[in-house]
């Protein structure tokens, strides 16, 4: 592995592809990560840390990493980022939306350090890049599975905060479900937290009590999976593979796999080819991965695999017209595909969702 990399770096240098400024590659790179939660949340921060470990494994002793966990958004995050910038980190990944302004502020003072901000939209300096994943692609698949598997024709959705990413997910899930069953019902509960196992369990119980038999969540804990398991319902895992918490319950899970991205970007720094970018990748690039399809009949499984393949190949885009907005007005005409820019600010539901989007 190491050898390949070395020769690769040499090849790049020889070919003179290498990029602007300090184009020459480096022998060793230090990558640093700022996490908003504990690495033990088994959700968002956990998955980022898995990505860090993946990159470490792939790059061996050419890579040194460091991380800070549970860093509050606000003044503390700016300090954490600056600390990394000063302590010799070559590239810094800041993994929460709230780190957006601090990342840009620090980046201004450290032009030689690369900054990568997850889920934000500001790149005010040439050394800042953003990255995110198209989780909604996975949501379309599970929406279809839900419509096939539900006996009541309805699913429950445990949502965190009404930001575009979550709204994309709800819409995409519903569009997937409607592609199978046009009358599918979706009940949404906003818990106003990313992470509170007790509250998520409460929401799960309330939804199941209310008659749905399939749960999906856009929060980070495994509690809804456990509740579904207890009640004999089905559920989809979120962020990480939660099969251990519901061996007979989980249908699949949408896994955030940051590893390939981290590996690519760190390698780019090593080789001197790093450039500012705004990455929003999905299944095709391996950023959104579906856990094995389990606890479902073969035909449903085949359908899910087919949809996944189509999305991966680009043949299918979940947001392809005709799509109506919730109020019945037209959003996308027949065959029209939503643009990334519009999706990034999505703040309305598609038709058929029986919930009011909190404003």
């Amino acid at each position, binding site marked *: 592995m190491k050898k390949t990399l070395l020769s690769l770096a040499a090849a790049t240098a020889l070919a003179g592809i290498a990029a602007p400024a300090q184009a020459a590659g480096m022998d060793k790179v230090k990558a640093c990560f700022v996490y908003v939660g504990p*690495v033990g949340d088994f959700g968002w921060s956990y998955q980022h840390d898995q990505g860090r470990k993946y990159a470490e494994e792939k790059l061996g002793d050419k890579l040194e990493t460091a991380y800070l966990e549970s860093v*509050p*958004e*606000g003044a503390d995050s700016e300090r954490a980022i*600056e600390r990394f910038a000063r302590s010799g980190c070559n590239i810094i990944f800041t993994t929460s939306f709230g780190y957006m302004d601090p990342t840009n502020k620090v980046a201004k003072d450290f032009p030689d350090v690369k900054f990568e901000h997850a889920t934000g939209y500001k790149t005010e300096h040439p050394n800042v890049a953003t990255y995110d994943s198209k989780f909604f692609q996975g949501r379309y698949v599970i929406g279809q599975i839900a419509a096939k598997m539900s006996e009541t024709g309805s699913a429950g959705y445990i949502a965190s905060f*009404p*930001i575009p990413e979550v709204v994309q997910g709800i819409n995409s899930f519903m569009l997937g479900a409607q592609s199978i069953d046009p009358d599918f019902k979706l009940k949404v509960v906003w818990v106003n937290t990313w992470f509170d196992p007790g509250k998520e369990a409460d929401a799960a119980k309330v939804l199941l009590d209310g008659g749905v038999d399939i749960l999906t969540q856009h929060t980070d804990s495994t509690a809804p999976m456990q509740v579904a398991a207890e009640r004999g319902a089905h559920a989809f895992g979120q962020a990480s593979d939660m099969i251990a918490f519901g061996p007979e319950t989980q249908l699949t899970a949408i896994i955030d796999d940051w590893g390939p991205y981290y590996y690519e970007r760190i390698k780019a720094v090593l080789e001197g080819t790093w450039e500012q970018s705004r990455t929003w990748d999905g299944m095709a690039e391996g950023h959104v991965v579906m856990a094995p399809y389990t606890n479902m009949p073969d035909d449903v499984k085949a359908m899910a695999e087919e949809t996944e393949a189509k999305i991966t190949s680009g043949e299918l885009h979940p947001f392809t017209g005709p799509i109506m907005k919730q109020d019945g007005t037209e959003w996308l005409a027949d065959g029209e595909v939503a643009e990334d820019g519009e999706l990034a*600010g999505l703040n309305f539901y598609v038709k058929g969702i029986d919930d009011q989007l909190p404003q």
Partner: protein
Amino acid sequence: MRIELKKRENISSLFSILSPFIALGLTLIAGVILFVSLGKDPVSALYSFFIEPLTEVWSLHELAIKAAPLILIAVGLSVCFRSNNWNIGAEGQFIIGAMAGSILPVVFHGWESPLMLPLMIISGMIGGALYAAIPAFLKARLNTNEILSSLMLVYIAQLLLDWTVRGPWRNPEGFNFPETRNFADNAVLPRIIETGKTHWGFGFALIAAIVLWFVMRRMLKGFEISVLGQSARAGRFAGFSDKKMVYFAFLLSGAMAGLAGISEVSGAIGQLRPVISPGYGFTAIIVAFLGRLNPLGIVAAGLILALTYLGGEAAQISIGITDKVTRLFQGLLLFFVLGCDTLIHYRIRLVFGAARKGSAA
């Protein structure tokens, strides 16, 4: 064996000085045990915690930024606690102060006036003071326990801020993310010196500490505060009003918390977000006690506590311990300091054998 305390006739000046060092010594011992048991080199761990943050200029600035809200809130609270008013809702007053101070830069975004910052600061202080006036009113007029009412108001303030930044004050150009516009340049608290990041919040903290130290030490108001704090009845004989003191203490500490809030938002964050404080209002209570309710002591205590935060981060990076260890270590330090301060007011005796009958001496 048991431990017996006997109140000293006078405060021990020896132990006033020694007790922080004893506490530090115990913390170091506990730290060595902790780090060795985790398989880490204790010397470099302790170095990262207590020394490393002090070795670089930028880090000293960060120390001041982190300490500023803690000191500001704690000096206000010290007056409150000394007068026997238990305001533990400073976190809420911090938030409301920050919100009140943000009305101008958020709602009247684009207003160009040199009055912007002064008005923001004043409205921040007023906001904090008014929010603190609620438990004060309830206590003075209705005899409601202020510890509990002020604590409840914290949750309400947090939820109000959450609602505001997700709803009416949400940045219209921010893709629906829950945060307000960034403050314009004329609404950002300036740095004290150009070369470093420390903003005027730290200046306010030092000024507040010195002024309050002077008031407590040299002026009649300080005497009134202590007398009423020790015994409301004695205070009434001296012609002091304990009701007015309730208002005074709460409004003052609320204004300080509000000032801390708007300074943090304007100086360090630059916008309102759903969460603007990692618990400053509660940590400041500990700071107030670490500083023995003395404004100058609080400056030292605030800096030390801020140091453990920075040191904790340094240790996470340099020797790879988790932030759990940091918090555990912080908790231990607090316990030792709180415990050792007993020595100032009491003699401690170890009594062996059976308990004696408690005869009133």
